């Protein structure tokens, strides 16, 4: 009897929520339109990889050896060097941010090279530090290799000494592109967006408009109200997830080394966590503006900045890492990247799923505790 009543009440509430969700185009824009835009931006637009960095070269030394430096730089697939006649012109281009670096070969370069003490000056456009660091590595590497080839050519006769040759192999990212780790991370962002941001508004709106009080006088129970809010947004979240997965595999060829089933289950678990966060925010603030701000600040921005999505958490101070460790997004991020790029690493899967399940139980329980049939 009571089970049948529960099902009936829940069904009609779910129908009401679904209608409300579908009636407003803005909701669908966030739930489905925004994921598509984000996928395209992240997949095609954003990249952390430096390729063909423009570099200006000033040759104050006119000897063929100095000119050969240019060829040495051009050998690097990451740099596109270009000679300019004067240092002044080169500096102007640096100041206008047209180029990333300036390589200055001084007038006495070849003479000093023969003496084994040549110097080359490299100026970097430091306004973008990360790019500058990478470009510095490429320039130094290209020059170093050039110098070694030069030395080999000159002194092939005098008893060659052995050299260590670095053979690099990059695991889990054979294409060595940031797309491979940005796109899986995107799933986390979209789940957070749909879960926390959209649901943060729904309860707050009912409180603000007073329609929740109207619901309180009906026989429905708070648990049923919450469940009815969860179901439609859960479905919207799953649509976002499907879009991401298809895009990752079909458009961007990101390999999925782990099991699809585990990936789906873990994503659903995280979606519940995100919904829990949204409902708690919503029930506590009871105000749409506040709820949206809190959702943005407490869930979305940290998921973007502190979860290891863009910035490697290994490099940050302990305190910030501690904040990251409190976020459920961090665990989901770690799990999903590992599932995509590494494969089924069971200890990691078990640990992170357990943590996410814990968060889901606590947050949904909290949302249930805050939603009481009571007027203040």
């Amino acid at each position, binding site marked *: 009897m009571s089970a049948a009543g529960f099902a009936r009440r829940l069904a009609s509430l779910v129908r009401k929520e679904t209608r409300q969700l579908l009636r407003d185009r803005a909701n669908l*824009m966030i739930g489905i339109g925004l994921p598509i835009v984000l996928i395209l931006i992240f997949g095609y637009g*954003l*990249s*952390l990889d430096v390729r063909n960095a423009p570099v200006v070269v000033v040759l104050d030394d006119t000897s063929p050896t100095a000119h050969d430096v240019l060829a040495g730089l051009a050998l690097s697939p990451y740099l596109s060097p270009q000679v300019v006649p004067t240092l002044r012109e080169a500096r102007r281009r640096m100041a206008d941010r047209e180029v990333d670096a300036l390589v200055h070969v001084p007038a006495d370069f070849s003479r000093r090279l023969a003496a084994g003490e*040549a110097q080359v000056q490299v*100026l970097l456009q430091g306004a973008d530090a990360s790019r500058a*660091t990478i470009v510095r590595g490429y320039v130094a590497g290209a020059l*170093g290799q050039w110098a070694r080839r030069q030395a080999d050519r000159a002194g092939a006769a005098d008893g060659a000494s052995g050299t260590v040759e670095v053979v690099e192999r990059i695991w889990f990212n054979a294409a060595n592109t940031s797309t491979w780790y940005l796109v899986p991370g995107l799933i986390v962002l979209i789940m957070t967006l749909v879960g926390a941001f959209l649901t943060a508004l729904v309860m707050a709106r009912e409180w603000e408009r007073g329609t929740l009080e109207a619901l309180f006088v009906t026989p429905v129970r708070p648990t049923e109200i919450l469940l009815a809010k969860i179901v439609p947004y859960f479905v919207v979240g799953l649509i976002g997830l499907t879009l991401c997965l298809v895009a990752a595999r079909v458009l961007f060829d990101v390999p999925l080394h782990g099991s699809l089933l585990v990936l789906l289950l873990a994503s659903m678990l995280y979606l519940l966590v995100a919904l829990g966060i949204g409902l708690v925010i919503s029930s506590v603030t009871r105000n749409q503006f506040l709820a949206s*701000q809190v959702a*943005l600040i407490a869930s979305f921005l940290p998921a973007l900045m502190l979860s290891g999505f863009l910035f490697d958490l290994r490099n940050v101070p302990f305190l910030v890492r501690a904040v990251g460790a409190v976020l459920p997004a961090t665990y989901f991020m770690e799990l999903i990247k590992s599932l995509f790029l590494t494969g089924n690493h069971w200890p990691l899967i078990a640990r992170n799923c357990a943590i996410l399940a814990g968060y889901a139980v606590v947050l949904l329980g909290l949302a249930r505790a805050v939603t009481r049939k009571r007027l203040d």
Partner: protein
Amino acid sequence: MTVLVDLLRRLGALCRKELLAILKDPANRVILIVPVIVQSLLFGYAATYDLTDVPYAVLDQSRGGASTGLLARLDGTGVFRRVANLHAQPQIAAVIDAREALLVLQFGADFERRLALGEAAPLQVILDGRNSTTAGQAAAHVGAIVADYNAALAGHARPPLIVEARAWYNPNLETRWNILPGLIAALSMLQTLMLSALSVAREREQGTFDQLLVTPLTPLEIMVGKAIPPILIGLVQSSLILLVALYWFGIPMAGSVLTLYAGLLMFTVASVGIGLSISALSATMQQAMLYTFVLMMPLMLLSGLATPVRNMPDALQVATLANPLRHAIDLVQRVYLEGAALSALWHDLLPLAITAAITLPLAAWLFRHRLA
């Protein structure tokens, strides 16, 4: 004269009402001040691509003096930290999978012998590519150390070619130095856009906007009165982040404060213009919020804050020219780090001025002409 005084009085009254509506709720006051400070601190520390700690493991099958010498150089950098000495090939996968090590160095059994014979001795470097940026930087670091080592092997007291690198505007190439000036624009935009987007939508939802329309205020005056409070709040938020950058992180400012504020004012006016247009278009607060958010995401991502604009495809780079946040971040970084003067910033100021000149009148017009 009296006309002007009258106008100012009306505008003053409207501004006062708007500010009260925003600031009367203590929770609102908190949400406008505290998160900005906390975020600039957190992101200031978190937003770094600088590699400071590289855990690595070694599989040394040669067990000779040469590999030990190279490892000593690695350990001496203070960046590389040896977490494990492996004994067999399969262990490599284990330490990398578990993220214990970012890279594994493998010396083959004939490493020592080849070096002694004067041949090229391969050193395998296996990198965890799950974060390709980190992996690339670590690889470059290893490469530089090996190059030094080779030079030492060849008997040079110093390497044959010295590369002397110096960076402009950011001598130690700290990512924080360009993230924080970027945040001065980005974080304040987040809330000013939302505030202005809600201002008209809230009145529409509560039905008070019609009352405002029948007052002696013209739509243009309503627009100005609605624009000024969020502009002020936006500038206050920018100032807070500026203070954090200057005094907490101690990032020296090269340019003039006046120039910076001139640029920020232009930017805030433009973003409030966008917010008010959204607000005038939407019927409910929820719609306004969601539209703002849908717009905000691409603006943030394509602004060059987190990933360089120059890494984007050409077509997208052109599209970012329409993004006010991109110009604002560029402007703040130039003034803050490079000390640019106002005359050198026209290519950032002009697009911002154009955005404001389009969106603000559009908002005023939409107040009365919204499509049902």
